């Protein structure tokens, strides 16, 4: 029998907190305005003052902007956490990894169906 979740540590505040409006902004900037994903992300970081954002932020934004893709393909989430926006450390951020990773995931055959 599984242990109850309340026996696990729970942190009610995520590493980065953003309003839902920020996800709508990102989606509009990328899909309607045609901004490069990393450029839209930088714009979001400026507007919402989160220069040290956690790697889950770009993952959440992609999930919101592209609800019908499998974001886990090709290790894209791994690539975001490990290479694109690691350690909430702006000095280690790599926009190219984000843009290239997303382009590869969107072009994957399994994301081309339907």
């Amino acid at each position, binding site marked *: 029998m599984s242990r109850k979740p309340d026996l696990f*540590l729970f942190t009610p505040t995520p590493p980065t907190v953003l309003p839902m409006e920020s996800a709508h902004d990102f989606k509009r900037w990328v899909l309607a305005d045609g901004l490069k994903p990393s450029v839209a992300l930088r714009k979001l970081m400026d507007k919402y003052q989160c220069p040290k954002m956690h790697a889950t932020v770009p993952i959440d934004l992609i999930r919101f902007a592209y609800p019908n893709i499998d974001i886990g393909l*090709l290790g894209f989430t791994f690539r975001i956490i*490990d290479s694109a926006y690691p350690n909430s450390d702006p000095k280690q951020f790599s926009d190219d990894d984000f843009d290239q990773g997303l382009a590869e995931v969107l072009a*994957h055959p399994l994301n081309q169906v339907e």
Partner: protein
Amino acid sequence: MSDKDFINSKLLLMRQDKQPVFDGFVGPLQEMAKQGELGKTVKIPVDGNWFTVSFDAVQVKEDRLVITANRILDGLTTATHNPAERRYIVEFAGTRAAYLVGFYEPRHIRHGWPYIYWSIRSYAPCSTGARVYVQDFFAHEEIRKLIVAMEGVYGTSNILNSYINDNLLRFQAGVRAGKTPQEIEKAWSRGLMEGLGYCHVEANDTGGPKGSWKSVAVHWCKHKQDLRG
């Protein structure tokens, strides 16, 4: 013993060990020995990146380099935009040699079922082929805790993960031995997953190129009817 002597004695021990894992590590320590100061951080080159660790935190265990870091996140948390959504994050300050981030999706875009998935790193490979581990982070145990916690929140019975298999020694060894991705995954996680009720597994090469290997998608489930076949 002065700081300088302490560091020099450590360097001497490391040279006697003759372990290739220290090839990129001795230089920064020699610099520290010249300065004769403890408490500074040392950057070690790992997997093309630089991981910053404090000298005191480095231990030698058999053929492994083990670093100690503070867990800054260790369990369930809320999502960035939605306080009702749950995440499972294990994260250490100053290093990404080990981490675990778990997510929930209410519906798979092609198969319909809800599922959990995660990204994990349990060690950092060095260019020498050696590995750097983080103290007290054991992949099976951390994954087990994630599954139980996320099951408790979402009641899910499907797990989906995608690996870049050339990062995993188990895939390299398994493929060389003529095993399929499915056989490799089942062997790796038999005790863990079957113990949690995930008795069915299917693994597929996604076809995505990655060096001379390809990524593999693995699906674990409790109910046979959820298999894609």
